């Protein structure tokens, strides 16, 4: 509904032309298939690396980042146009996946807190999808209560020496860098005395161990630091100010989790069509299970309300949605919609939605079961449902903290 200027229309034309010339047509709609945990697989490998190089070279994997650091230098309307055009032809952005936590979280935080040297060193390879980042936040005894973390970094002149253990470091086993919250002053109170360190993963002091999840294999690891080292220059933000840096990064995380899962270029079957296929319909085309139909309608309305809220917040912010007070609302809403979608998909599949592996179930059915299980993490990671509600009630609504027994 937004009227585009002539200049913007011209930009759209140039994007179209560029995509025509550069996006390998064989990759059309293959985003989900090619991007497993970020490793290219399958017969289309060459096309895929070519596309990565071209998109990264143009800076369009990170379209809004400044071009001097390898980004696309686009404004938000241009970015929207780019995404629309990519969607139109079934193109996808591999950079965001290849960079792990880089493009979505670490990068934006470096842009805000990093020194010029840090920006020049870390951002361009991120933009090209060459360097994958993981995050060292949670610890076994510091889940939602992140401030009680215990992993320690000691100042040893030219470097920091790190000891401790992190959990839920997504992709730690395949990442080149890790952004970690570490305690640099053990005398200070919880939130003080924490710093944000950037560590090279390829060093003897770091060991990773993948975590098997309820859905099976997972990108998550336990990560052990035993006299691991970081350069003195690899601290992001000020000493003992890591809490602010880390919190800001989490806001980027929330913002990146506010959309409902997009399979990347491919259009999947609408839930209501799938329901009719499994359940059947009556003569008037109504789903043959009035009970499920009602809950399906409720879900689709919730999903549309969520989508409209993203659009509205974007419009209100005149394009800049990356970090906003609404991130907590959208995070919980995205989670609710995605988890309900999984539950309803399983329900409509009935017995066919119980498969784990082997014969008797098709791939989509097996994937649904795994997605359902892994999707339970959405309300836990990136600030749990409860933590988001705390944020809303305290930061947005201004309700006080409990100070007494009760």
């Amino acid at each position: 509904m937004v009227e585009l200027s002539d200049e913007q229309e011209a930009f759209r034309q140039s994007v179209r032309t560029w995509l025509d010339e550069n996006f390998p047509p064989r990759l059309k709609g293959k985003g989900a298939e090619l991007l497993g945990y970020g490793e290219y697989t399958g017969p289309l490998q060459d096309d895929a690396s070519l596309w990565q190089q071209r998109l990264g070279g143009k800076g369009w994997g990170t379209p809004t980042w400044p071009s001097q650091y390898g980004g696309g230098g686009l404004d938000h309307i241009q970015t929207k146009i780019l995404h629309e055009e990519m969607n139109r032809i079934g193109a996808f952005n591999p950079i965001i996946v290849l960079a792990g936590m880089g493009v979505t979280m670490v990068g934006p935080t470096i842009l805000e807190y990093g020194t010029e040297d840090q920006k020049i060193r870390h951002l361009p390879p991120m933009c090209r999808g060459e360097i994958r980042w993981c995050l060292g936040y949670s610890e076994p005894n510091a889940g939602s209560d992140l401030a009680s973390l215990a992993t320690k970094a000691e100042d040893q002149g030219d470097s920091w020496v790190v000891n401790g253990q992190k959990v839920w470091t997504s992709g730690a086993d395949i990442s080149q860098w890790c952004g970690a919250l570490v305690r640099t002053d053990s005398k200070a109170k919880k939130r003080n005395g924490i710093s944000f360190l950037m560590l090279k993963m390829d060093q003897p002091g770091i060991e990773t161990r993948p975590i098997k999840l309820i859905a099976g294999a997972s990108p998550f690891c336990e990560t052990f630091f035993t006299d691991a080292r970081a350069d003195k220059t690899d601290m992001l933000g000020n000493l003992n100010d890591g809490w602010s840096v880390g919190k800001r990064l989490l806001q980027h995380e929330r913002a990146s989790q506010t959309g409902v899962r997009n399979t990347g270029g491919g259009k999947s079957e609408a839930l209501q069509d799938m329901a009719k296929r499994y359940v059947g319909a009556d003569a008037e085309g109504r789903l043959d299970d009035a009970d499920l139909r009602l809950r399906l309608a409720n879900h689709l309305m919730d999903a549309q309300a969520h989508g409209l809220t993203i659009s509205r917040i974007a419009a209100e912010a005149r394009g800049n949605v990356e970090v906003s007070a609404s991130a907590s609302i959208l995070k919980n809403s995205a989670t609710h919609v995605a988890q309900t979608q999984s539950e309803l998909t399983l329900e409509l599949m009935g017995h066919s939605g119980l498969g784990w592996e082997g014969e008797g179930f098709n791939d989509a059915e097996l994937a649904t079961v795994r997605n359902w299980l892994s999707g339970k993490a959405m309300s836990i990671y990136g600030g749990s449902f409860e933590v988001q509600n705390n944020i809303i009630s305290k930061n947005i609504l201004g309700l006080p903290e409990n100070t007494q027994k009760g």
Partner: protein
Amino acid sequence: MAALTEEQTMIKDQAQAWVTEQAPVAKFRAMRDSGVEQGFQVETWQAMVDMGWTGIIVPEQYGGSDLGYLTFGIVLEETGKHLTASPLLASALVGASALLLGGTEAQKQAWLPKVVDGSEILTLAVDEGPRHAPNVIALRAEKTADGFSLTGRKTMVLEGGAATTLIVATRTSGSAGDAGGITVFLLPADTAGISRQVLKTADSRGYANIDFEGVIVGEDAILGELDQGAGLLTDILDRGRAGLAAEMLGTAAQAFAMNLDYLKTRVQFGQVIGAFQALGHRAAILFSEMELARSCVEAALQGIDGEVPSQAQLCSLSKCQAGAFLHHMSNELIQIHGGIGMTDDFDAGFYLKRARAVEGAYGNQAFHRNRYAQLLNF
């Protein structure tokens, strides 16, 4: 709020200031206590006319300002906040929409300026039983020598007591349940054969049951096409739904504000009750529901303004989500306020009663859930 134009922002500020100062809930209470039959105060209504609200969706050539439905929604949200009672929705939104969508040039010229200057109050009479069921219209309009003769009953007509002109959905052929055979008429409310039973409802607003006994009208009273009125009726209703949803959002938003204020000031067990995490989380959940409902409400209004193909779907979404939030919110308003919320001296009950009344108007949540599914073909 959506990204507003300067004009919209101005209108919103004006509406907010006027409602707060000139038409707060205390005014509604006074109206209720006075027992005024039509369910609104004349001076309130006149002030709205004077501010130009009755012309918001009316083109300039008929005396309006042609600012569109989103702008109308902005005003309705404000009146909804303080339960400001008036025929604004029934006449200037639903009535004017009917003329804009189905009126001949002559009809528009005859009625729209009077809608704008408040000299006519229009309303749509659609339901015939206890439920909103526009697909089973049975009120009969029989062809006569010079026109039609209407016989039947319309129930729970919004502002049915005060209306001077009725827009009536009738059956001119086929039988109840048929998609074809619906014709919409526009006729003066004092036409011979019309009798009204004004209702006293829980929300103290203006409604009436209206009986038609051989009411004679000419062919020039038809809005839209003979026998082809079902689509027109749907479009009129959808505009009413979108407008009502905006009003409901306002009502719920005010209830939320009252609750939040209470959470911050009421002390129990040595602290303000908003410090209790269970209540804090409930407030967070309500706030999230409000943000989501707002998006739907604004999208429906913008969808009408932009004539997007998914208008109908957005209108059902909007009415349903606003209804769900208002229902939840009005109940929490009472629950959080506890005993004081149960007293008539406090305003919470007004919000609860109003929430129940608007829920069924132009279709309840179940109606719109079903319609939403139908529109998505399942």
